[in-house]
């Protein structure tokens, strides 16, 4: 039984040391080079940091080196926290306050910025020069247990403070093995990575690669604006597998990209994180009739994925592709308003999850964790935690789960998970802001912000929000109101506002 995710790296570095593990357009790391970098970084951290099981920020642009930095942290028995280099400083500060990181790993590009978040800043370029101390590394590794955290990933929080989801080796090992076995990722696969490393969607790319002795290529972000370059990348590197958000796949279908170039090796097409428009799916399916198409579903709090559906039939444009059934060693069930188990098809309930995939809660946020990681209401006999996703679903006639909507004000916008409350909090934090309320126009995929103030107009408001919010959280439509529709409770009248979209 594996107890540490680094065991995958040891195995692959032994089995195929010279094979390209992770590459981008600039650089390629073989498994052997990867292991050497990880050992050097691990040695440095053990020598310089006298702590265990503490967070280390990794603040670098996406590249194979970032993965080496992640695993260097893990080798030292600490855990990594990837931070988006495009994140506004104010939001990083909220995370740093919550996390109190033991150190930051960065490179020359971001050194000055990183110094603002910690006195303990390590330069990647210097760390990899550290002479490896095998004894020190193996002593430290021998102390690790599979309930140690591997990483913390931050997700949007409705109160305005992002939530850090803590995930253990055990959850990650369970996830990778179930996923690779079920979907069939092998050493012949080349995965083209789209998801940023600070999203759980990238876990499949990073960890299935090392588990299966496959290869992973990082697609430059810019290519997703230029469909031909994107397709040329897939062709050039013989990509077999993608795990992309539907928005990225839409980039190809909108421009009828396959008419110009149809990558020959593609055979596994996996999508999730938002609902797949059937039109986009049908376009891809028509061009790749023999490929395997898989819809996956799962929040960060259960390590990314808990259900899957291998698409096995045709869908008309107005149908929804099911999220399917649970992976092995995971139980997914629906509870109604009174916490009763739903088994009939058609009845809507909250998706609840139990199993080794459950995260260890939110970092330094016990109360928020206890709200959603709760005792299974169906079991009063022994301690058994479930995660309440807040997602509503139902069973279809084939007993497959079908996503319906959210219980609250969380939305999925272009694959990103956003709490509308986080946007509203950022708007209300601006001086002289009287009212603010966000609604989501799901027909047009737009975040609509209504606001009331004398201090800002649409342009200056958007500028101000860029300093506080992630780019994908910036409202797509802003509407200034002279009078805000209110409920008697003093809250904004969302129903009225929705009618004003």
């Amino acid at each position: 039984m594996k107890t540490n995710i680094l065991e995958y790296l040891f195995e692959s570095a032994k089995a195929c040391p010279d094979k390209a593990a992770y590459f981008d357009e600039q650089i390629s790391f073989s498994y052997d080079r990867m292991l050497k970098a990880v050992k050097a970084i691990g040695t440095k951290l053990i020598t310089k940091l006298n702590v265990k099981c503490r967070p280390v920020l990794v603040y670098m642009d996406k590249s194979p080196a970032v993965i080496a930095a992640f695993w260097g942290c893990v080798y030292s028995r600490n855990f990594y926290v990837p931070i988006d280099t495009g994140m506004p400083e104010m939001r990083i500060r909220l995370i740093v306050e919550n996390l109190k990181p033991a150190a930051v790993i960065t490179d020359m590009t971001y050194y000055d910025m990183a110094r603002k978040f910690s006195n303990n800043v390590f330069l990647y370029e210097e760390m990899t020069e550290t002479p490896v101390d095998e004894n020190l590394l193996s002593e430290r590794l021998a102390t690790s247990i599979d309930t140690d955290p591997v990483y913390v990933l931050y997700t949007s929080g409705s109160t305005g403070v992002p939530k850090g989801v803590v995930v253990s080796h055990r959850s990650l090992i369970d996830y990778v093995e179930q996923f690779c076995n079920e979907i069939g990722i092998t050493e012949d696969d080349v995965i083209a990575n789209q998801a940023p490393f600070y999203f759980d969607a990238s876990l499949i790319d990073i960890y299935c690669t090392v588990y299966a002795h496959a290869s992973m290529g990082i697609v430059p972000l810019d290519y997703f604006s230029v469909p031909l370059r994107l397709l040329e990348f897939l062709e050039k590197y013989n990509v077999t597998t993608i795990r992309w958000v539907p928005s990225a796949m839409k980039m190809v279908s909108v421009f009828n990209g396959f008419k110009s170039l149809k990558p020959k090796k593609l055979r596994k097409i996996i999508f999730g994180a938002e609902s797949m428009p059937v039109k986009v799916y049908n376009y891809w399916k028509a061009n790749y009739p023999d490929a395997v198409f898989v819809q996956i579903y799962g929040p960060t709090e259960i390590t990314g994925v808990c259900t899957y559906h291998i698409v096995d039939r045709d869908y008309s444009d107005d149908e929804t592709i099911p999220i399917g059934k649970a992976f092995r060693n995971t139980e997914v069930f629906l509870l109604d308003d009174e916490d009763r188990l739903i088994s009939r098809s058609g009845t809507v309930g909250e998706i609840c999850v139990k199993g080794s995939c459950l995260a260890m809660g939110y970092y330094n946020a016990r109360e928020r964790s206890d709200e959603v990681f709760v005792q299974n209401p169906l079991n009063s006999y022994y301690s058994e935690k479930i995660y309440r996703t807040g997602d509503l679903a139902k069973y279809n006639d084939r007993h497959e789960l079908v996503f319906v909507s959210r219980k609250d004000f969380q939305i999925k916008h272009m694959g990103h998970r956003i709490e509308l409350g986080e946007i509203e909090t950022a708007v209300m934090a601006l001086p002289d802001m009287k009212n603010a309320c966000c609604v989501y126009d799901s027909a047009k995929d737009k975040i609509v912000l209504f606001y009331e103030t004398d201090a800002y107009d649409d342009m200056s408001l958007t500028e101000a929000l860029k300093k506080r919010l992630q780019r994908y959280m910036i409202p797509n439509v802003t509407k200034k109101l002279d009078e805000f529709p209110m409920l008697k409770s003093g809250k904004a009248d969302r129903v009225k506002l929705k009618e004003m979209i």
Partner: protein
Amino acid sequence: MDRIIEILKAVHPEVDYETETGLIDKRIFDSFDVVTIVGELMDEFDIEITAEHMIPENFNSAEAIAELVRTLEEE
């Protein structure tokens, strides 16, 4: 041109489209913005924008987008 600027403003109201010439190169538009904008352009002007047209030079400024739309309208 006015209609094009209106479409662009709906996506990024904070940009000065009269002077900006790095909409793609400076990553002011991300890929999802581009999909939105292209969808609107295709509907509004009844043109087909294909993968060959989707190169940064055609989308770096409002002027370049207008030029692309003019060319495609003539086809």
